[in-house]
């Protein structure tokens, strides 16, 4: 291994150790025995087949959002609006399922159409953010954030308004769909191998696309230096729009899967922060798709396992978020420190 590689590994391991140290200190401050608390997270994640299934259920949307932001990151775009794109995917999927649920169409076809509608919904919402940036000069971070708020408001309007349950006005969501319109899952679980399979295929496809295709290379060129790419004949704004569209499509797919596989209805906050979590995963892996699956799996496992912190130690389960955020923050800091170190060297 070259010297620089050792330095890289050293900084990354150092960041992980510091993150663990800080988390441990926080646990001690909160009155929880750290080792037992970590053990409880692990047992909460892997202690039963149900819990492992639950990890896989949450892994799926996280893989999709991570895949999406890897593409926009490659094109040099911070697609903060991914939460809204996921929400629009859920809305479009719900709309199609509602429209077709009482028709004679085969349920499988309705599910497929619903998922496709979700893909389109997410892509269109992302295209809006892309258009705002490309043609309106609106930074994609601000445009995305604004569109996130709009998507939330739209969901609330639909849930309390035209799509409300008969006799009910509640943020609990729309009327659950008939079981025949659920994405098939393993018996007695919400784990859909279809959802999982699609998500894995997407992340694998993104890996190969970014690693070994002209498309991926051009996206990266746009992301690294847009002007240079333009001078080299790459149609930059078209590639930016393409990145938005593809990311939105994956986010929309993720939202559609939440509707057809997990909740079986539309509800406010259906994106559940998966978009932002996907951003964290992408940053943690330094935008290398190779690591997306295992790190997303790790995040999903922490999410599930940390529920035990509240059950056993009365700690708020949002502690999982603290651990994840710390990890990302320190790895980014470590990367910054590494670059300074190498420059000085």
């Amino acid at each position: 291994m070259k010297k620089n590689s050792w330095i890289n590994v050293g900084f990354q391991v150092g960041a992980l150790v510091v993150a663990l140290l800080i988390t441990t200190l926080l646990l001690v401050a909160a009155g929880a025995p750290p080792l037992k608390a970590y053990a409880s997270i692990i047992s909460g994640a892997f202690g039963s087949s149900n819990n492992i299934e639950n990890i896989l259920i949450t892994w799926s949307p996280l893989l999709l959002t991570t895949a999406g932001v890897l593409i926009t990151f490659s094109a040099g775009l911070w697609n903060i609006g991914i939460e809204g794109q996921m929400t629009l995917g859920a809305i479009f999927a719900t709309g199609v399922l509602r429209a077709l649920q009482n028709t004679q169409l085969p349920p499988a076809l309705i599910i497929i159409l619903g998922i496709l509608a979700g893909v389109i919904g997410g892509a269109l919402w992302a295209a809006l953010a892309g258009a705002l940036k490309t043609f309106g000069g609106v930074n994609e971070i601000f445009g995305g954030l604004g569109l996130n708020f709009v998507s939330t408001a739209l969901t609330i309007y639909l849930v309390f308004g035209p799509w409300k349950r008969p006799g009910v006005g509640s943020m609990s969501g729309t009327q659950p769909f008939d079981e025949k319109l659920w994405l098939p899952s393993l018996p007695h679980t919400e784990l859909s191998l279809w959802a999982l399979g699609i998500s894995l295929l997407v992340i694998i496809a993104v890996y190969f696309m970014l690693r070994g295709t002209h498309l991926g290379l051009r996206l990266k060129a746009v992301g690294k230096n847009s002007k240079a790419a333009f001078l080299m004949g790459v149609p930059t704004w078209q590639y930016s729009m393409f990145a938005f569209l593809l990311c939105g499509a994956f986010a929309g797919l993720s939202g559609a899967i939440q509707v057809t596989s997990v909740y079986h209805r539309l509800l406010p906050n259906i994106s559940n922060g998966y978009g932002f979590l996907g951003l964290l995963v992408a940053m943690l892996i330094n935008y290398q798709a190779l690591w997306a699956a295992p790190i997303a799996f790790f995040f999903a496992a922490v999410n599930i396992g940390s529920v035990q912190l509240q059950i056993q130690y009365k700690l708020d389960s949002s502690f999982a978020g603290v651990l994840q955020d710390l990890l990302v923050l320190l790895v980014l800091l470590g990367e910054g420190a590494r670059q300074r170190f190498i420059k000085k060297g």
Partner: protein
Amino acid sequence: MRKNVLTIALLAMTIVLVLTACGPAATTVAPATSVPPTSVPSTQVAATLPPVPTVTPAPFIFGMLLVGAKNDNGWSQATYDGGLYVEQQIAGSKMLYLENVYSGSPSYPGLTASQLADQLVSQGAKLIFFNSDDMKDEALKFANANPKIYVVGVSDDWTWKDGKNYTVSANQVDIMGRMEYMKMIAGCAAALTTQTGKIGFLGPLINDETRRLAASAYLGAKYCWSQVLGKDATKLTFTVTWIGFWFNIPGVTADPTQVADNFFNTGYDVVISGIDTTEALVEAEKAKTAGKAVWALAYDYKTNCGVAPDICLGVPYFNWGPAFAATAKTAVDGTFAENFQWNGPDWTNLSNPDTGAVGFAKGQGLSADNGTKLDAFIAQLAAGLNLWTGPINLQDGTAYLTAGTVATDQQIWYLPQLLEGMEGASVPSK
């Protein structure tokens, strides 16, 4: 080359991981023959609950999913206290709980209530309380997927054989208290106190439960306004404003603080809270400090008036302990069976913690004279006065109960609209 090997290894590891993890679940799915015995009658609509005898000590873990915080001074604290009561009554029992469990809760990103129940089961829980209607679908789904685990759906009606939504769920019991009586008392206290004749009802979301509770408060208010005070019923204004959920969720629900303020700023001098948290009391206290003569009624939790004692007229509250303990005992001794309970108050002693399912505690804001009148009204209810007696019309003018007709339990539980004379959205059920 090394990168390729690493790539293939990682992909292979991912696939193996998925394949191994996707094997059939072995631990929680029981054969149909393991369903608990069903010797107990499937529907129990009890008037009062008998005292629960202390049972032999036995290690028994049960779990509770709380829609809010365990110290919310409201619904979740009342159900949490019900769990503590179980711990007292069943020696060796232990409660595990999770707070803030609702659809889309940021505390558990992407997790459903049934997935959270899995976490409680993995710690040994044999009985799970789902404490909110927001988890109604999840409770049923979990019960069906886990036939060896007992489930209590608080405020649900899946197991009510005479209900609209009856679904076979052999390992589930649904429990609700007859809060309608206590809401009538709250409505009466409001009507006796109001000086402007304008009563506001701070409503949560809209469903069967909240419609019938708001309507019960109105019936109590109308009765005391017209029959006790002798005033013209048409001069009473009773307005319901819904926030969209049981408590404030910024950016999602209407803000209950603003709704309460709006009532007090538009001439309403008494606000009856129907939500799980205490904004009505807090805002009434502020308004009083600013010089307004206003009052509020709390909800859910026995000591809720303590938030703002001077302006509190009283609190209709739940006393879940006796029903929870009785049900948990059946889980311990193996006699747990599907049934529905809509438990009433103990009219002989409304505040007995070991008997009635609901109660009413008067607040310091209620004048002595009105307190006496309210006691008389309570005595009438205890003696059999039933305000759910016709003629009663729905909000849109449709006759619901003809003169002299007493509403059935189904007509009360599934009230399709607010009542004539009430203002506010009904969201009629089809």
